[in-house]
């Protein structure tokens, strides 16, 4: 739910001058973009925030309900320790201060809100004043990361395409009601849509790393609201609009670009940006007005009398901090150092995102070549888990053979594919079986390449599936190598090249 306090991201009529200034290239026709993000993530607990009902996605509707979830008369909330711990983990990973905090009731009527109030945190959230570093050392402030409960889910029936407008009735499933959420509110420090995308992606990486959430945007366990305003550099912030329903990282970028352009065009044509809540229509690629802020609800926040304050002591906080795993930025830096790749290179980012960086360390530890391992893993292990099935030793062996010119890169690739298919294997024996080790493979490969270059028609035919065209090529290689090449190895090499 929308952050209650005035300190929320993206100032409206405030006189704030931004301390973070966009570079000239970042300006849009001379306008500076100011973006703040409110990200809701569902915590990976077994039960709900305030009751023992299961926190599970995708089951039959209304099968994870109990008196608390349904807001039955007389039901009382009791806080989930694990949810608090996960929220603390996230807060500490975001460099927040973990502080004594309280819960408030946010009162409003909606059919998927069972008690007609959401239990959330208001002026005393659990985590405050943190930051998140984007690649390129851009530091985005995190104002707060607070605990609150999720709502149920409404399905709109009748009318057009399940939309709320014009529907005949709605159906409510309370399985999601009461699921623990953390709402992470950034400071309005983001200046480009790319930074916004990086922020979400980085936050997602941190959530996964600390095990706080599965952070699946497509399933709604991570949801973004984006606050956008534009102004001329050196002048106060413009009026912001809040965009809801931004459900992928790509949409975050598109929505911001669209909205920035809309606001700039509006101002340039003499209009005034009104503080509004907008809805992102991903299909149409545009924002639509949901409501203007003047008729916003009066939420009548007050301290939740059914709960008591939460005050994690220093020992608890330190225990959680000490148990934090290495975070993506540190892991990228370590992987870059280990492999010699750039710390902002795509391969490093991809491997850390997949969580396969530790695997590469393991390869290096048993003597493998880390730089080659990075490439192998990036290319062949996209479908593999964080700990791939192929033993690290096999990849180490493969990388050494390639490094020592016992295999061509093409041969290595062939063996790599086989390793993945079989979940590992004796690389030396595999190479032998393919005849890859019969001749100094580096030399053989260069001869094969010469033969191909000399007879492109035969090569094209062979590649197109004409098996007998291989004869001319093998013959040419034999001739060029003065008969030293192993026919089997040549055939295998040609096969490998044709299928790569």
């Amino acid at each position, binding site marked *: 739910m929308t952050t209650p306090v005035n300190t929320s991201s993206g100032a409206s009529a405030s006189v704030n001058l931004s301390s973070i200034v966009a570079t000239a290239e970042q300006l849009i026709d001379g306008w500076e973009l100011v973006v703040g993000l409110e990200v809701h993530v569902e915590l990976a607990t077994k039960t709900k925030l305030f009751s023992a009902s299961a926190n599970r996605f995708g089951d039959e509707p209304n099968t994870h309900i109990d008196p608390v979830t349904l807001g039955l008369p007389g*039901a009382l909330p009791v806080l989930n320790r694990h949810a608090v711990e996960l929220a603390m983990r996230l807060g500490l990973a975001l460099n927040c201060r973990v502080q004594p905090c309280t819960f408030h009731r946010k009162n409003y009527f909606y059919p998927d809100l069972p008690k007609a109030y959401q239990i959330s945190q208001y002026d005393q959230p659990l985590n405050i004043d943190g930051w998140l570093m984007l690649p390129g050392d851009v530091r985005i402030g995190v104002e707060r990361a607070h605990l609150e409960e999720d709502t149920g889910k409404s399905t709109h029936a009748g009318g057009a395409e399940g939309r709320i407008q014009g529907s005949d009735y709605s159906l409510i499933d309370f399985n999601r009601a009461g699921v623990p959420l953390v709402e992470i509110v950034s400071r309005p420090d983001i200046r480009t849509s790319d930074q916004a995308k990086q922020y979400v992606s980085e936050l997602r990486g941190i959530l996964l790393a600390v095990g706080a959430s599965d952070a699946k945007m497509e399933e709604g366990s991570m949801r973004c609201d984006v606050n956008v305003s534009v102004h001329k550099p050196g002048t106060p912030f413009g009026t912001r609009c809040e965009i809801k329903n931004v459900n992928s990282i790509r949409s975050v970028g598109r929505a911001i670009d669209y909205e920035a352009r809309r606001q700039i065009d509006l101002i340039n044509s003499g209009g005034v940006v009104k503080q509004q809540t907008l809805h992102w229509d991903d299909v149409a690629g545009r924002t639509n007005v949901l409501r203007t802020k003047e008729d916003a609800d009066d939420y009548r926040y007050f301290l939740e009398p059914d709960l008591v304050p939460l005050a994690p002591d220093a020992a608890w906080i330190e225990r959680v901090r000490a148990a934090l795993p290495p975070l993506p930025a540190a892991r990228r830096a370590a992987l870059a150092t280990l492999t010699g790749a750039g710390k902002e290179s795509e391969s490093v980012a991809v491997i850390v995102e997949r969580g396969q960086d530790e695997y590469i360390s393991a390869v290096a530890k048993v003597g493998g070549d880390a730089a080659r391992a990075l490439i192998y893993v990036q290319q062949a292990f996209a479908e593999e888990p964080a700990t791939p099935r192929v033993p690290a030793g096999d990849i180490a062996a493969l990388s050494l053979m390639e490094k020592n010119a016992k295999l061509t890169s093409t041969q290595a690739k062939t063996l790599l594919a086989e390793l993945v298919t079989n979940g590992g294997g004796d690389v030396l024996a595999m190479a032998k079986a393919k005849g890859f080790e019969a001749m100094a493979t580096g030399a053989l490969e260069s001869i094969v390449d010469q033969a191909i270059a000399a007879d492109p028609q035969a090569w094209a035919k062979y590649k197109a599936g004409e098996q007998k065209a291989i004869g001319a090529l093998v013959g040419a290689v034999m001739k060029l190598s003065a008969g030293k090449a192993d026919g089997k190895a040549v055939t295998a090499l040609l096969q490998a090249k044709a299928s790569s």
Partner: protein
Amino acid sequence: MSPTQGTGRADRAHSAGRTVVDIAAAVANGSLSAVAVLEENLAAIAARESEVHAFNLVTADRARERATQIDADVQAGKKVGRLAGVTIALKDNMCTRGVETTCSSKILAGWKPPYDATVVRRLADEGAVFVGKTNLDEFAMGSSTENSAFGPTRNPLDTSRVPGGSSGGSAAAVAAGFATASLGSDTGGSIRQPAALCGLVGVKPTYGMVSRQGLVAFGSSLDQIGPFTTTVADAALMMEVIAGHDPLDSTSLPQPAPMLTGELSKGVQGMRIGRITDMPEGSSPDVLAQLEAAFDALRAAGATVVDVQMPSMLYGLTAYYLVAPAEASSNLARFDGVRYGLRVDAKDLNSMYGATRAAGFGDEVKRRIMLGTYALSAGYYDAYYGKALKVRRLIADDFAQAYTKCDAILTPTSPTVAFKFGDKTSNPLAMYLCDVFTIPTNLAGHAAMSVPFGTGEAGLPVGVQILAPALGEAPMFRVAAELERAQ
């Protein structure tokens, strides 16, 4: 025992003539059958319930089944609980699995909770037999039980008068001999005031001592469940069963139930009893006379009476009538026609909400929802709700100061004996003044109880209120037992 002196009313009031302690002992040792106890209550119900209207629902069949089972268990030599065969009436704002729980409101009429309140489970585990669900002011908002959607309850001692409220049905059920004991809830005096008006012992425990889980909330930071009984010893035993930590209520105190039955014989020798010198005015002379007699009795038993000041007591009422409605406005928002209870159909959702709540809630409930919503809304919070919470602090500070000088404080429970129907219904403020002595202790979260002490106008019982600090139940019960002995 007979709480009043020489009136025919009192004898009739306790026609069953048995106490919780007696019944539990006799049923457990086989000398009395649980069925016989129950049938005595059911006979009293048959004779007088149409006149008194203590119940929203009498669960005779379930009760007979239960009593029969308990007798069978005793016969079979099985261990039975500490309340074996004790008949108990439950205020109809406590959830009972599969049994209608209405809060005397149209908006919940017919609703059967899918779970039991913690207190209900604890009583059942000790062998209690539930007789039925008792009438109350709708959602416990009132002091006369005239605000029930199902009609008022009458005071069994004089049916032209109110039984007090909001737990009027629970008080009347015990006073009329329909049950041996009952449970009420007390947000601003809703157990103690009807106990006083019906000549019973009524306890408002320290906030957090008895689980609120399954009690339909009115003012969450004020509500406590407590017993109505005819004797102090019965109240002590009931407390031992229902009190104690409950992991399902975050505000439940961590300690186990206090052992109170052992306190009763200790007397008050050496105890310091506070008399509030700046007490709100307006109590009737008969009530004040009995209060003096109570001080005398305690003095005679060896206690010292000391003067204490409660300068902010007067403001208690004011603070209460913002804090309780504010919490109530939020607590009662869940009655929206979506998941349970009444729905008035309408063309769209908002119309359904508005029509359902308009049709489902009575006037007093609407008034308090409006007041509470207003007090919390943007622009008014600091002026009303915020200030009320500060007054609440002043009251707690006054008590803290007072308890440096005394162990317990005596006040009237109610400014008057039971009043006639309609006397205060036209003026909400006059009705609210009924609770002027009881409210401050709810704001502070302390222990309090009312014990019958003599009679006043028209031979009706007078209740004396004993106030004690948080967790002061043990000294409070010592004083209560002494006042009972002095009768």
